[in-house]
């Protein structure tokens, strides 16, 4: 935190007195339950892919992620996911469904600016950072794992 001057500090104290206390524990429980339900649905989709399509447990993960993101995109378009996000907070943002939500909500928000500069240019405003850091992290992890296998640390 930045160093505060005396007047800033007194103002902050005033804010603290009048500020409503955040129900942190309740929020955590809500996020946990809703996130768990989303993950349970994801598991059901995985089982569906294993049962009715030629996917193994290992390979069923990719289509499951795609389906979950797609469902979240549809729900965002219908305006359902926003309410869920308001209720559950991080519980709806942390699973992959949050990715679909951030893509579509940005697209809807910038619709009035036209398709190319508005929707196309701003669609990955939020989701772009997910992609960038995901790719960077995957790149470094793959390098580390390859090196460890080369040196015989990992089997």
């Amino acid at each position: 935190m930045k160093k505060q001057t005396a007047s800033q500090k007194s103002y902050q104290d005033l804010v603290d007195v009048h500020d409503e206390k955040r129900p942190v524990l309740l929020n955590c429980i809500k996020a946990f339950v809703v996130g768990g339900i989303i993950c349970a649905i994801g598991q059901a989709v995985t089982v569906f892919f294993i049962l009715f399509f030629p996917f193994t447990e290992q390979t069923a993960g990719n289509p499951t992620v795609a389906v979950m993101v797609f469902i979240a995109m549809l729900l965002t378009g219908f305006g359902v996911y926003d309410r869920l996000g308001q209720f559950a907070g991080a519980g709806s943002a942390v699973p992959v469904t949050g990715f679909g939500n951030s893509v579509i909500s940005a697209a809807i928000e910038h619709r009035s600016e036209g398709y190319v500069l508005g929707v196309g240019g701003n669609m990955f405003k939020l989701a772009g950072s997910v992609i960038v850091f995901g790719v960077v992290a995957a790149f470094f992890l793959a390098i580390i794992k390859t090196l460890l296998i080369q040196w015989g640390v990992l089997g």
Partner: protein
Amino acid sequence: MKKFRFGIAIVTILLLSGCALFEQVGPIQVVIHDDHQEMVSTIKKQLEEKSELYDTIVIAAEDNILVTYKVNHLNRFQMKSIEKTLNDWLEKEYPDEDFILSSDYKIFLESYLLFEEWDEGSLAVDEAEKKLEKIIELKKELT
């Protein structure tokens, strides 16, 4: 509310209708090629003694032997080491044979379906071998 309940019912039915995926179907052996009868029985007995596994299928074809099993839920963290010890044991006992081990539910399900068809007697030997080849191909798929 009614729609919601309907959705839950559908999801539950979908989950419970998985037959061999969720219930124990008991240790099973399928011998497509007659030479391996004794070996398959030994392997099956060895697998049954392991407390970490609760359901096994051993399928033996002419040159491939597929061993699939389900791991108890609390032992799933040690899945890799279980597979390694099992593989080492098999390699030591039968150095000439080619073993494919899998703890994947999909592989288990497919082997169970193969067993059911084989048990009915509606499957010729070469057809069964072809199906087994397909299962092994599926197991080796990674992406």
